[in-house]
């Protein structure tokens, strides 16, 4: 199996060859962009938007300022992929950013690093300095005449800042509240200038695509589209950790082969396939190909690839309660349906789990989920309502038992 992203992970940090960058600098920017487009690369930040298409929203061949932002805010519960790329192979990310900058004509890039990743904030600038010293970043990169700079910006604790427009607000020294779109960051982003935002892992796929070609990238997936995928596997498995597998690997294989099966020989109950914000799957639903389209067809999402495995001992209402607390805490508060809805859902689930629920509470939570869904500025609304509604729909008897036994 081809490792695109984690080949260096056991070798510790080292300056890789930057061969893809050398090749990039011998090509025209639009040729580079075309390779990325043909590779079918889709954003790894959770939305899965085609990267090549996103690049087309930027002004083409313009001499104006374009900013590049790497979203390293990784806050989606269940996810720890970007962290490991930055820890073990920061040069892969840097190289990917320089190539993207060359293709779209950006001169300045920022890595928005989540505040909690303090240890990464210490050494990422060192990796950047290394690249600058080697002439791979900064002024006149490898004598090509192309210059690009990267600075690390550290967040200060906010889940919603992972949303790209909230992230831009945060970079501008404001509270991280998502912006109304349009206009999109591609035309009005950081300081009102065209801005390209990608996740750490998205940028890190680019060197492989340039070096080996779009077809090699596609071939690395089991669906023929879309490369490999990093899966953060956690919960009740024997070997939790980060795994790189072909896009389209079955969820069963990831749980039972990669992660060594369920801990203590227990039965599997449920799996959250793509980070807490993606709808839950029952144990009988895990024969599913882990790719964007297949998961969408079964009404869940690939999301960030954070697979949370839960054995038979887990109480789903408790998981729902934890999730509700998280969303209520992290709502930025600007849209009333999200602010009030998450607070109400938390309250209702708290009292249900504590044995004080009222008969109508469950339907009330479902109504609130429907009310939040689609009525907010950013996708946070979906991130709350879809997973909680799915837990109730698929494990309704557990919630009802709480109401009956009170």
């Amino acid at each position, binding site marked *: 199996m081809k490792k695109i992203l984690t080949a260096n992970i056991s070798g510790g940090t080292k300056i890789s060859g930057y061969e893809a960058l050398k090749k990039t600098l011998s090509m025209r920017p639009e040729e580079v962009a075309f390779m990325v487009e043909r590779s079918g690369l889709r954003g790894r930040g959770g939305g899965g938007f085609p990267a090549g298409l996103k690049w087309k929203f930027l002004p083409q061949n313009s001499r104006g300022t374009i900013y590049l932002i790497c979203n390293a805010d990784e806050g989606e519960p269940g996810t720890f992929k970007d962290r490991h790329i930055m820890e073990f192979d920061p040069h892969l990310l840097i190289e990917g950013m320089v190539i993207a900058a060359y293709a779209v004509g950006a001169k300045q890039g920022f890595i928005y690093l989540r*505040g909690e990743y303090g240890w990464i904030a210490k050494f990422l600038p060192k990796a950047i300095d290394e690249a600058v010293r080697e002439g791979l970043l900064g002024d006149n990169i490898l004598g090509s005449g192309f210059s690009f700079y990267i600075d690390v910006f550290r967040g200060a604790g906010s889940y919603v800042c992972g949303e790209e427009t909230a992230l831009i607000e945060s970079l501008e020294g404001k509270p991280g509240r998502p912006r109304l779109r349009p206009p999109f960051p591609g035309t009005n982003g950081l300081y009102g200038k065209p801005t390209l935002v990608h996740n750490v892992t998205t940028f890190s796929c680019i060197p492989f695509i340039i070096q080996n070609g779009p077809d090699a990238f596609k071939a690395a997936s089991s669906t023929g589209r879309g490369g490999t995928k990093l899966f953060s596997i956690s919960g009740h498995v024997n070997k939790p950790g980060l795994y790189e597998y072909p896009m389209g690997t079955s969820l069963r294989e990831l749980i039972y082969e990669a992660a060594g099966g369920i801990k203590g020989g227990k039965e599997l109950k449920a799996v959250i396939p793509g980070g807490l914000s993606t709808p839950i799957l029952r144990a009988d639903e895990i024969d599913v190909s882990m790719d964007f389209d297949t998961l969408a067809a079964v009404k869940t999402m690939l999301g960030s690839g954070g697979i949370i495995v839960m054995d038979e001992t887990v109480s789903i209402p408790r998981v729902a309660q*934890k999730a509700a607390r*998280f969303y209520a805490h992290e709502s930025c508060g600007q849209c009333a349906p999200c602010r009030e809805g998450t607070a109400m859902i938390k309250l209702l689930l708290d009292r249900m789990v504590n044995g004080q629920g009222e008969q109508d509470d469950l339907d009330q939570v479902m109504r609130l989920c429907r009310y939040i869904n689609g009525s907010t500025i950013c996708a946070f609304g979906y991130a709350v309502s879809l997973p909680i509604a799915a837990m109730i729909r698929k494990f309704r008897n557990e919630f009802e038992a709480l109401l009956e036994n009170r």
Partner: protein
Amino acid sequence: MKEELKDIINRLAERFPEKESALLPALCYLQNRDGYVSEEGMKSVAVILDLPEARVFSTASFYSMLNLKPEGKYIIQICTNVVCTLLTENPLLEYISNSLGIREGEVTPDGLFSIKEVECLGACGYAPAMHINEERYENLTFESVDEIIGSIRKSELI
């Protein structure tokens, strides 16, 4: 002191195309220096970066890692998100809370520790996890927690 702060913040601002971007780094600097972000500190930052005070206050209060009141010298940040609490209800939070005799949000009388409940720390594969100030601790057990807290106490005796 004021002049020094001005220099430092101006240097932070030089890194960015627009100096307003230095606000969050400046607030983080204050917290590192003083242990929290004081009202006086925020007022100075507003003057230095030429921003309305209200803007500085609203930004400072938005981010959960910024403390607007004094905390313990060691802030124990315990993840209570889904994966870290899958096994039982908040076992780590409860355990640490009992062993220090304070609840979440409180500071020990000697000013050494405070406890904060935090969201997923990106360590779910190595759960349960916590941070103490900037240090990261994973795969925790009650024993390892005792050891960590014990060694901090010892280091404070010297």
